[in-house]
């Protein structure tokens, strides 16, 4: 998507170049993992890919949530131009993650998958988080932003509960060592607390979340 350029913003060619660079960066982990899996460095490549894609889904969700604080702190408004792309990369890695599970872990054994979703809390939680990402990805286009107007902002607030659920998914799946989920959980807590703190600071005026700013509202 080419963003609609408004006067006063950085020239569009710069933005496009910047976005392309970030796009390429977002694909690096995938390239690295495919390389490691293919080169035989990963002894259990399927487990390795499942875990890697899970880690990146969560990482890109957190990156998406980091945009607004970063923009506010740095004053770099160009950052907001990245938010949709980062969110869609979270979805992209989430699709890979789920596909690996359905295909290479369960080999499309639907009764077993259904059983997992119902009986295993960490899968239930992951599945719920994934399903919440779906409408956000679908409505990420300019067309949907215009169509949904104010409700678009409300809908996209789903990123908060779904990212919390993703972290819970992580906590519930580790065998013993909670270090990694604690790290991701801490980052998420900081990103959410920052918003709460700002809300409290600007108590009277809740941040506008309308489509009028092209969905680039303060979230």
């Amino acid at each position: 998507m080419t963003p609609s350029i408004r006067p006063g913003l950085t020239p569009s060619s710069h933005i496009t170049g910047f976005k392309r660079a970030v796009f390429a960066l977002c694909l690096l982990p995938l390239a690295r993992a495919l390389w490691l899996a293919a080169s035989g460095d990963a002894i259990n490549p399927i487990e390795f890919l499942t875990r890697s894609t899970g880690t990146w889904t969560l990482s890109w969700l957190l990156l998406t949530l980091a945009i607004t604080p970063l923009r506010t702190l740095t004053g770099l408004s160009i950052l907001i131009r990245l938010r949709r792309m980062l969110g869609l990369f979270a979805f992209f890695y989430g699709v890979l993650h789920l596909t690996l599970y359905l295909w290479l872990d369960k080999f499309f054994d639907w009764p077993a998958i259904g059983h997992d979703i119902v009986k295993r809390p960490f899968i239930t939680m992951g599945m719920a988080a994934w399903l919440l990402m779906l409408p956000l990805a679908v409505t990420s286009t300019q067309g949907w932003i215009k169509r949904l107007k104010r409700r678009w902002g409300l809908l996209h607030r789903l990123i908060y509960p779904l990212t919390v659920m993703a972290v819970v998914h992580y906590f519930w799946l580790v065998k013993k060592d909670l270090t990694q989920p604690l790290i991701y959980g801490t980052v998420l807590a900081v990103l959410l607390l920052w918003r709460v703190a700002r809300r409290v600071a600007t108590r009277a005026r809740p941040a506008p979340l309308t489509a009028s700013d092209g969905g680039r509202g303060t979230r």
Partner: protein
Amino acid sequence: MLIKKPDAIRPSELTPEPVYLNRRQFMLGSAGVLLSAEALAASPFSTREKENSWQEITHYNNYYEFGTDKSDPGENAGSLKVRPWQIAVDGEVAHPRHYGIEELLRFAQEERIYRLRCVEGWSMVIPWTGFPLASLLKQVQPTARARYVAFETLLRPSEMPGQREHTLAWPYREGLRIDEAMNPLTLLATGLYGKPLPNQNGAPIRLVVPWKYGFKSIKSIVRIHLMETLPATSWNLANPAEYGFYSNVNPAVDHPRWSQATERRIGEFFKRPTLPFNGYAEQVAALYRGMDLRKNY
């Protein structure tokens, strides 16, 4: 079904002769003094399935004393000093005593190619060398009160960085019922592919109980204690609802968080069905006759 029963076939009958001889020469060459030609008898308990590679067996390890990632032990275990080494064998035995590692290596060593099934849902085929735990226990003579055998791993945080974290209650502990311990399948392993056991695999001496989930096969053992009461075991202490004392491989009893019905053999694309007692039912099912294996998971 892909898995063959561990029938009484000698590896020498199954492996093409030149390959087999090569391997024995390789063992002799690399392990030198430790393993003599006569000592390395082939075992009827060995499986004929394709073995996992040295690289796979030594770079995909659960050994939390060296970190919780499966690549950690291969990277961190080099710091462990495995000489001198002693095992204290005590408790309900007529002759409690210490065994130095040199003495343990003088027990008749044999090759045992066993399947290993991890509780996490993956498996390997591993050519161990070692000797039956029963040979050691017979020497110290368990008393009539010896109903269980407790094992302990070395506690040395200076060389085992994982022990500086509170992941598990250190030292690592495991246990068997005495009849499980005396079963001829139960091995004290001292080598891998005919070479001395690498540190990340539990050097210098570890337990191998092939019909139980891998975590029962305790590594780098320093104490074997025979007792009358059920010993405490590390994973059971950490999470009793998920890891029972028996932990026999059982496709019918799921781990609360994942299914145990299938497993991925490392190196294979498709998953394969998990067998009761990891395919060793013929040798060990009788030990559990009349027991509810759902309750005694």
